[in-house]
């Protein structure tokens, strides 16, 4: 046997590992396939699909260009306001929570407890928050703002923590060596490092909140969601079309600008 053949025998064999992975994936796939249930699918479905498509491509232009509180432009404005305020309130609340769950700032047990709390905050679906806040404020966009704020906290604090844990601490040492107080260390050593990244993350979340705004409509917490869902439940597909078109154009525009702004912020 020459050296080449010997070396060939040394080839790391991944067969067992690959087979196990494949089996696991296939088992999960088969298991999840049991969720496929086409028994409710009727030939009706195709007609409905056609109707929906037809409605969406022939939107109700009246609704699209009416400038009172029932028109699409105002609803979009209200949705943006909800997402904007929700993001700001959520971001403000997320900052202390993030610091409290960063393991390089507070003792490990405290960080762990806060993290657990955050998981709960994140798991509760927006609908439930919506219902809880409607008791506080009554139905309307105010409840929407509070709901958005609470649902934003989960993701924002998680991303904030990542940023905090990447913090460059050497700078603090050098600031201390020039004789800075704790406040000065935070003001000149920490905030400049964090603010740009935090802002970028918050803008990203604003983008997401706008997409999720439709959910608020389910519980009557303001925004464009409620009219959208009413229209869908009433099979008024051309109204659905005009609302969807408005929403999609807005989301694309906001995404375009938010990407631009975030690039500017992060790259300086």
């Amino acid at each position: 046997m020459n050296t080449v053949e010997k070396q060939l025998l040394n080839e790391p064999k991944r067969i067992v590992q690959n087979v196990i992975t494949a089996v696991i994936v296939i088992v999960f796939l088969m298991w999840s396939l049991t969720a496929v249930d086409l028994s409710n699918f009727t030939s009706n479905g195709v007609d409905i699909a056609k109707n929906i498509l037809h409605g969406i491509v022939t939107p109700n232009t009246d609704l699209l260009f009416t400038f009172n509180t029932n028109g699409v432009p105002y609803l979009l404005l209200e949705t943006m306001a909800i997402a904007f305020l929700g993001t700001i309130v959520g971001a403000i609340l997320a900052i202390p929570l993030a610091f409290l769950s960063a393991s390089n700032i507070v003792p490990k047990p405290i960080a762990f407890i806060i993290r657990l709390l955050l998981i709960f905050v994140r798991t509760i679906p927006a609908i439930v928050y919506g219902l809880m806040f409607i008791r506080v404020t009554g139905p309307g966009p105010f409840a929407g703002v509070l709901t958005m704020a609470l649902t934003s906290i989960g993701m924002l604090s998680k991303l904030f923590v990542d940023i905090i844990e990447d913090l460059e601490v050497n700078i603090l040492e050098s600031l201390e060596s020039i004789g800075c107080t704790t406040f000065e260390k935070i003001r000149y050593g920490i905030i400049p490092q964090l603010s740009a990244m935090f802002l970028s993350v918050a803008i990203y979340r604003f983008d997401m909140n706008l997409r999720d705004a439709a959910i608020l409509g389910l519980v009557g917490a303001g925004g464009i969601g409620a009219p959208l869902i009413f229209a869908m439940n009433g099979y008024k597909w051309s109204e659905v079309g005009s609302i969807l078109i408005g929403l999609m154009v807005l989301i694309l525009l906001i995404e375009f600008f938010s990407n631009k702004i975030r690039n500017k912020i992060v790259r300086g």
Partner: protein
Amino acid sequence: MIKFQNVQKKYDNGYVALKDINLTIDQGEYVAVIGLSGAGKSTLLRCVNRMHDISTGSLLVNDVEVSKLKGSEIRNLRRGIGMIFQSFNLVNRISSLKNVLVSFVPDMPMWRKVLGLYTKQQKIEALEALDRMNILDKAFIRVDQLSGGQQQRVALARTLAQKPSIILADEPVASLDPITAKQVMTDFQRINKEMNMTVIINIHHVDLALEYATRIVGIRSGEIVYDGPASEVTDEILDHIYNGKLEEELTGN
């Protein structure tokens, strides 16, 4: 045999990178192409395997008119020509062996291609190519854990496994230290002699070029200004290749 006849290369932006090139290289030659940065060395090399198209003139590789090839014919041409890059251009996340095996892929049936399944014969051939470059022991190491010189040898092994008749090397030693650079140049020399492969190297180290290559082609702003045996290159000739511009300006004024 590679034959340039009145070849001109104009880039899309209108820049003429090669002007009226006439050059014949026989099978089994070891040619070093030298010249200033921007002279057109890379352009010249990349025309040979149609990584670039020529604008006018004719370019024959083994009696095939390169500029007339299309689609899969181009890929067939490239199968017979190996190319080596300054930055090795290996797939970083996978082992040396897998990098070498990639050279068999174009000839494999579709299903093997998609799944990435190689035959035992192919593995042995790839290992032999690694062995020829003296890095058999690194076969199962990820290439990003190898030194620059070792990576260039994996790249050479990949090219050898392809069994080309021509090797084009674009500054293969530019990112290596002097000792490793010499070793790699010796590797080229060995391949050239043992397997009678044509080797064309773009290189900035004139000493290495003169020491290892048998023929030198000097390029200045897209034109061949010297073509002859390495043994006959003098300081005046080097001056002419590298400082020609300066010379021209001086005499012009």
